[in-house]
C-alpha cells in the first residue's frame, strides 16, 4: 500500500480518536505512550517530506514561527516525543501486536491511537520507500497531513489532562504544550492550503483590503482581539447564513463561559459588584443569543459560498478560548487574573452582536436567506423569506446586544496596585507565540516547507 492509502487509514483512526475520549478508567500510561509514538512518527514523516530533523535537545522557539512555521511545529512534536523524564518504549513488534483490524472495530481511545500509530508507521515507511525526492507540492501535501494529525494529537492530549489536578504547575505546563501545538498545527495547515508564493492571509472575497488573518487565542488576553476580528471579517467578507448562525452560537457559548468565570472571580476581586454586574449582563446576552440560534438553526439556509476566514476565526475561539474560560469556573484566582480581558470582551460584544444582526438583515434584503418550508407551496422544501420570518431572530439579537450594554461602565482609572492579570498578560511564551503568529501571517508561503518564509517586510535573522 502507498503512503496515501496508509495516511487515509490513519485519518479514519484519527476521526475515531476524536470520538473515543478517554474515560476515567483509561490506561493513561499506554495512551500517553501512543501519543508519544504518534509525535515521533509525525516528526519523522514531516522530516522525510522536508528534510527538517529536529534534534532531541532543540527547544521550541516559538518566536521562530514567523520564519520557520513548519520547523517549529516539528520541533514541538519532537519535544512531546522525547519528554525530559525517561519513558519505557515498547518494541515495534509489541506495537504491532493487538492492533485493531479496522477503525470500525475500535472501542476505546487506546485502540484508536494504537491503530493510528500503526498506520502512521506504515505511512512513514511507504513515504521513505517512494525512493525519490519529495517535490514541493507533495511536501506541502504531506505537511498538511502532519499538521491535521498533530491537531488531533493536541486535542487528545487535552482530553487526557486530569479535570482536577493535584499539581497545578505541571498541569499548566501540559496545557501550554497542547495549546501551543494546536495553534501551530492549525497555522501550518492554513499555510499548506494556500499556493506557493501567496500570502498566508487569504485575499478577501470582496476584493477589499486584506484581512488581519486569524487571531489566535492561546490565552484569554487575546479574546477581545479575536472577537473584534470577527466583526472586521464581517465587514470585508460575505458571510452566509450558516456562518452567521455558527458565529452567534459561538458567542453565546463564549459569553456564558465568561459570565461564569467573572461570577467566580467576583468574591476574590477588589471590584466584586463590577464583575458580578458584568457577569449578569453577559449571562443575559448569552441567553438571548442562544435562543436566537437554537430556534432558527434548522430553519434557515443559503446557497452562497460563505466566508472560510470567518469560520476559521470562530473555530479558533471555539477550540481554545471557550474551553479555557470554562476551565476557570472553579479557579477564582485565575479567573480574577483573566477578568480585565473578560471586561474588555463585555465592552465590545454588543457591537459585534449588532454587526451580526445587520449582516443577517443585509442578506435578507438581498434575497440570500432561504427558509425551510414543509408546505406544498415550496417544491424543494425551501422558499424566500417573508418580512415576518426573521423578525424573531433579529429581535433576539437586538435583545442580546441591549443586554450586553447593561454591563457596568468600564473602569478606566489606572490601578494603584499591580493587577496580577497584567503580569500574566505581559509575560510568558504565549506572548512570543502571538507576536510570531502575527509576523508569520504577514509573510508569503515559500516554495518548500523547509524553506524560510518569504518575507514582504524582512524579519531580522537571529
Amino acid at each position: 500500500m502507498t503512503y496515501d492509502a496508509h495516511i487515509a487509514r490513519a485519518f479514519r483512526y484519527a476521526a475515531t480518536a476524536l470520538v473515543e475520549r478517554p474515560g476515567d478508567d483509561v490506561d493513561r500510561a499506554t495512551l500517553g505512550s501512543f501519543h508519544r509514538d504518534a509525535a515521533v512518527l509525525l516528526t519523522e514523516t514531516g522530516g522525510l517530506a522536508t528534510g527538517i530533523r529536529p534534534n532531541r535537545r532543540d527547544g521550541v522557539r516559538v518566536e521562530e514561527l514567523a520564519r520557520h512555521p513548519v520547523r517549529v511545529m516539528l520541533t514541538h512534536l519532537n519535544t512531546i516525543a522525547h519528554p525530559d523524564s525517561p519513558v519505557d518504549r515498547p518494541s515495534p513488534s509489541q506495537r504491532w501486536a493487538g492492533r485493531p483490524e479496522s477503525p470500525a472495530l475500535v472501542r476505546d481511545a487506546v485502540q484508536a491511537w494504537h491503530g493510528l500509530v500503526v498506520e502512521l508507521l506504515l505511512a512513514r515507511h511507504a513515504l521513505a520507500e517512494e525512493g525519490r525526492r519529495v517535490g514541493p507540492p507533495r511536501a506541502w501535501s504531506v505537511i498538511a497531513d502532519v499538521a491535521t494529525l498533530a491537531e488531533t494529537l493536541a486535542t487528545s492530549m487535552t482530553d487526557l489532562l486530569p479535570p482536577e489536578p493535584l499539581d497545578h504547575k505541571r498541569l499548566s505546563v501540559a496545557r501550554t504544550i497542547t495549546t501551543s501545538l494546536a495553534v501551530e498545527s492549525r497555522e501550518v495547515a492554513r499555510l499548506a492550503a494556500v499556493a506557493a508564493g501567496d500570502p498566508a492571509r487569504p485575499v478577501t472575497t470582496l476584493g477589499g483590503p486584506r484581512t488581519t488573518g486569524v487571531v489566535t487565542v492561546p490565552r484569554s488576553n487575546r479574546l477581545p482581539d479575536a472577537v473584534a476580528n470577527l466583526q472586521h471579517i464581517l465587514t470585508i467578507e460575505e458571510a452566509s447564513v450558516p456562518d452567521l448562525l455558527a458565529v452567534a452560537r459561538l458567542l453565546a457559548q463564549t459569553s456564558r463561559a465568561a459570565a461564569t468565570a467573572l461570577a467566580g472571580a467576583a468574591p476574590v476581586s477588589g471590584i466584586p459588584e463590577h464583575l458580578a454586574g458584568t457577569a449578569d449582563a453577559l449571562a443575559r446576552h448569552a441567553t438571548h443569543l442562544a435562543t436566537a440560534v437554537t430556534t432558527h438553526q434548522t430553519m434557515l439556509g443559503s446557497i452562497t459560498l460563505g466566508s472560510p476566514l470567518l469560520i476559521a476565526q470562530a473555530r479558533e475561539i471555539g477550540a481554545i478560548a471557550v474551553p479555557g474560560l470554562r476551565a476557570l469556573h472553579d479557579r477564582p484566582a485565575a479567573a480574577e487574573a483573566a477578568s480585565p480581558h473578560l471586561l474588555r470582551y463585555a465592552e465590545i460584544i454588543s457591537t459585534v452582536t449588532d454587526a451580526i444582526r445587520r449582516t443577517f438583515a443585509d442578506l435578507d434584503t438581498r434575497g440570500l436567506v432561504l427558509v425551510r418550508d414543509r408546505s406544498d407551496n415550496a417544491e424543494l422544501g425551501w422558499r424566500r423569506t417573508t418580512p415576518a420570518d426573521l423578525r424573531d431572530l433579529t429581535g433576539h439579537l437586538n435583545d442580546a446586544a441591549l443586554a450586553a450594554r447593561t454591563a457596568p461602565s468600564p473602569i478606566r482609572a489606572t490601578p494603584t496596585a499591580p493587577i496580577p492579570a497584567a503580569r500574566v498578560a505581559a509575560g510568558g511564551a504565549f506572548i512570543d507565540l502571538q507576536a510570531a503568529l502575527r509576523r508569520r501571517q504577514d509573510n508569503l508561503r515559500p516554495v518548500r516547507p523547509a524553506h524560510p518564509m518569504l518575507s514582504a517586510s524582512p524579519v531580522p535573522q537571529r
Partner: protein
Amino acid sequence: MHDMSGLTTSPCHFSFETEVVPLVRGHLAAALEDLPHDSDAALEVCAAWSALDQASQLPTMHDVPQPEDASTALECARAFLHDAMHTADSVTRAMAYGRAVRHVDDALQSHSVAAGGA
C-alpha cells in the same frame, strides 16, 4: 420530505453516506424541539449541525418521529454519525463526522448534568 423512523431504517437500503446526514439532521432537529432553547445542550446540538454544513449547500433533513426525550434523539444521531465516519468517501468528511460526534457527546453530557440538577 420523507417520514421515516430513525430506529428502523436499515443502512443496507440506501446509499449510506448520501442519506445519513439528512437523517442525522432529523434527529438533531428532534432533539432541539425537546431541549430548552437557551440550554448548553441545545447550543452543542447546533454546533454538531454546523459541523455537517457544506458550503453553498442547503441542509437537507429527513423528518423523524419525535422521540420520548432529547437523549434518545441524540443517541440515534450519534450512532448514525459514528457509522458514517467509517463509510465516508473522504477523510475530510470522516473528520467532520468525528467532530460532530464530539459535539453530540457534549450535548448529551450537558443535558444529563442539567437533568441531574433539575
